């Protein structure tokens, strides 16, 4: 499969603006006492994941490039997450 056309610089600036807004939200969330506890943790993880996904998909072109690259990267990422989750769980949960 051929590489699809790359995004334009305008697109990059837009993504950067979105990233900036999310970062501002991340800093704001812990200040708002209504979110204390589990909501805060979930919100922060979700916002971080959004930033992560935006950089990977657009700046690293994973959305536009060969699926092979995406798969190679996701194997590492989604391999590491469950393994280390289990490692941590064996220390505490069981």
């Amino acid at each position: 499969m051929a590489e699809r056309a790359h995004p334009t610089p305008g697109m990059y600036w837009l993504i950067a603006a979105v990233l900036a807004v999310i970062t501002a939200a991340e800093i704001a969330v812990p200040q708002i006492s209504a979110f204390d506890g589990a909501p805060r943790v979930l919100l922060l993880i979700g916002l971080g994941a959004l930033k992560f996904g935006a950089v990977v998909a657009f700046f690293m072109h994973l959305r536009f490039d060969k699926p092979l690259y995406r798969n190679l990267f996701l194997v590492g990422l989604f391999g590491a997450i469950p393994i280390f989750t289990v490692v941590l769980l064996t220390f505490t949960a069981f």
Partner: protein
Amino acid sequence: MAGAPLAEHAPAAGHDEGHHDVRPVRKTAMWVFLGSECVFFGAMISTFLLYRSNTNGGIGSEIFDIPFTSASSFVLLMSSLTMVLAHGAYYGGDLRQARVWLAATALLGTTFLAGQIFEFSEFIHQGLTLTSSPFGSAFYMLTGFHGAHVAVGVLLLGSMFLLSLGGRLYDDRGLNVELVGLYWHFVDIVWIVIFTVVYLLQQP
């Protein structure tokens, strides 16, 4: 931007009598390497999570200066923008503009590193060291190894910049810049995770 991307030259099935298209070959290897790095940083992040409250009776996560770290995180985040603009300029054939963005990226990376050095010296001054607690060991190892990755990235960007002055590096529509860019963005997304997991989530 100077015009449309150069015409795609049809990549043959891997190799064509010795002249194979190196683009997918190198990018495949780079992505494999980045997948591997996920495990590398995953192991350190889990170590930190395991030891996040093992402060040995000393200083813990209350030491973090969230506003300061937010600023330096933002600097690194924006360096991803300049990096991708550099690559876009190379891809489009605008070597002069690409050089400017490369320099900007290296500069932002250096700023981040300077911030990290300041943060470390501040923490050490307050008594949090590599040897004060498992928390300290895990914190310095994780952020230190990330910093080392940034430093390597700055070194690579610097070399790219110097090479581009001699007009080198334009081969294959800036493939080398693209590869360095992938590495640089990866270092950035690792920091996105560290910023969330180590700093934001550990606030009281």
